């Protein structure tokens, strides 16, 4: 399972010539220039920065908006609630590709092409169903007594939401944030459509372009791939518990 990854790391330390003569063994000599060249170039860091900004923006929007909606779904009884909730849960099975084309036209008419908002807002919108479903589950478990106590102490709905519910739901917010970050980080189709100019390219787009550009220099492409994997794997190592918890909760509650 790890063989492709190890192979990529080792190949990055070879020259392309070495790679074709000695594809399987250890590098001899170890060449670091593939890695250092990429780390020294501004374009790679631009991808990392752009991916980070877009992931952070998407997460902030989707979590804030979903928390409000999930709060209303979990703690209020109101006419039309079931209908609205069904509408959002239906969104769980909308393939993004279905909306891609008209979404592109919409973003074009709104002047959001080559603009990070053109990726952030649609990603947040498509992330809503899953986030709302997970958060609603957590919000429902907070005891009604707390709500009553807060109300007696003079909290309005918004005060209860802000001062009590959100702090108590911090683990849940962490989980949905991790899911949103990973989803945004790995998205390919939407950035591919929205970003014509390299200014805002994200890592998946950058990787594809790099391979196209240096298709003959295998060792360089391997080094590039490995570096492109590092942020995601590092994030995974840190947030593993929340990610796995979120995926299993999302999958079974969805």
């Amino acid at each position, binding site marked *: *399972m*790890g063989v*492709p990854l190890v192979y990529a790391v080792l190949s990055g330390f070879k020259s392309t010539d070495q790679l074709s003569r000695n*594809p*399987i063994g250890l590098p001899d000599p170890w060449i670091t220039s593939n890695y250092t060249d990429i780390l020294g170039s501004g374009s790679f860091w631009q991808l990392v920065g752009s991916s980070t900004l877009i992931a952070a923006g998407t997460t902030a*929007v989707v979590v*804030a*908006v979903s928390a*409000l909606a999930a709060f*209303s*779904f979990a*703690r*209020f*009884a*109101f006419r*039309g*609630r*079931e209908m609205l*909730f*069904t509408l*959002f849960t239906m969104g769980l*099975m*909308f*393939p993004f*590709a*279905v*909306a*891609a*084309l*008209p979404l592109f*036209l*919409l973003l074009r008419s709104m002047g959001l092409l080559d603009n990070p908002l053109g990726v952030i807002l649609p990603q947040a919108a498509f992330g*809503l169903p899953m986030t709302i479903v997970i958060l609603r589950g957590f919000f*429902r478990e907070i005891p*009604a007594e707390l*709500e*009553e106590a807060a*109300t*007696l102490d003079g909290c309005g709905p918004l005060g209860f939401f802000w001062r009590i519910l959100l702090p108590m739901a911090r683990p849940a917010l962490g989980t949905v944030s991790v899911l949103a970050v*990973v989803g945004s980080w*790995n998205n*390919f*189709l939407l950035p591919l459509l929205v970003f014509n100019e390299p200014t805002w390219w994200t*890592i*998946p*787009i950058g990787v*594809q372009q790099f*391979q196209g550009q240096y298709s003959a220099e*295998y060792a360089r492409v*391997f080094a590039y791939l490995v570096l492109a*994997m590092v942020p*995601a794997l590092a*994030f*995974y190592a840190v947030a*593993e518990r929340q*990610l796995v918890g979120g*995926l*299993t909760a999302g999958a*079974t*509650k969805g």
Partner: protein
Amino acid sequence: MTSTFLPDKRSGPDVGVPSPAAGPARGRTRRRAVHWLTAVGFQVPALVLFGTLVLLPMLFALYASFFRWGGFGMPDDYIGGDNFTRLFQDPVFLGDLWRCLLLVGLSLLLQLPFALALAVALNQRIRGRAVYRMLFFAPYILSEAITGVLFSMIFAPDDGLADHVLGAIGLDGVGGQWFADPSTVMATLFLVMTWKYFGFHMMLYLAGLQSIPAELTEAALIDGAGPWQRFRNVTLPLLAPTLRISVFLSVIGSIQLFDLVWVVTAGGPDHHSETMAVTMFQYGFKRYQVGYASAISVAMFGISLVFALAYQRFVLRRDLQGATTTMRGGGS
């Protein structure tokens, strides 16, 4: 349902608001309206975002699918159902459907049982269990684009790792064109998909396995059941809800497959690895037949929807009761 913010008929006396006795009916109606507005007010940002960027584009795709349209200005050349008639005579689209079925079949018959076997194995107390879990799940974290580029180099004709390994163990003629050969491209793609996704399903199963009380397996052990019997009669039935979810996600994933194929083969050679989403992309963004591409979108949506509804109706029904009671409520 816990709610103290909205005093409605079901929730009994309102403990929250120190109400000025039971006011006249008009005051109650007004208070009700205010509460409704408060509750719905929290939904407004979500509704605006979801409505404009998810629902509106979907509806527009449906509208555009009835036109011959190049994507500029508004569609005006109405052609009724012609795009759909064309769709179901288009060999590429029919091939997409066939390839989708193929991937679904392979996933259900090979990938998921493999993931299940590994999950059962990793659920034992074995050395380094946590490391294995990390390792198997790591590919799921990588984007399909990165996975695609990695494997397009591993399966590169002649120079790739795959051919070298086969050559080293004396199987020179076996590999070869991989993604470039119409007869092997789907199998190779499926291999890559398995590498990337089985860890996710394995994690789902592990979570399911941990929720099975150990007493049940122990009881079966005491009753003299062998490993296979314990698995067949205790583990498998109790894992069924998890399995059903995993199958659902796997099928929906196969219907939507795009990134991996686009990066690795872009649908080639000669459409032999094309998926519905890739065909849509080709027509919509490369050939500017936006009306026809919209019809493909609508067909994809229809297929997902029919599958999802049928699956919920016939397979998931038992699991959803209790878990999401709201699904049975209004609307659905």
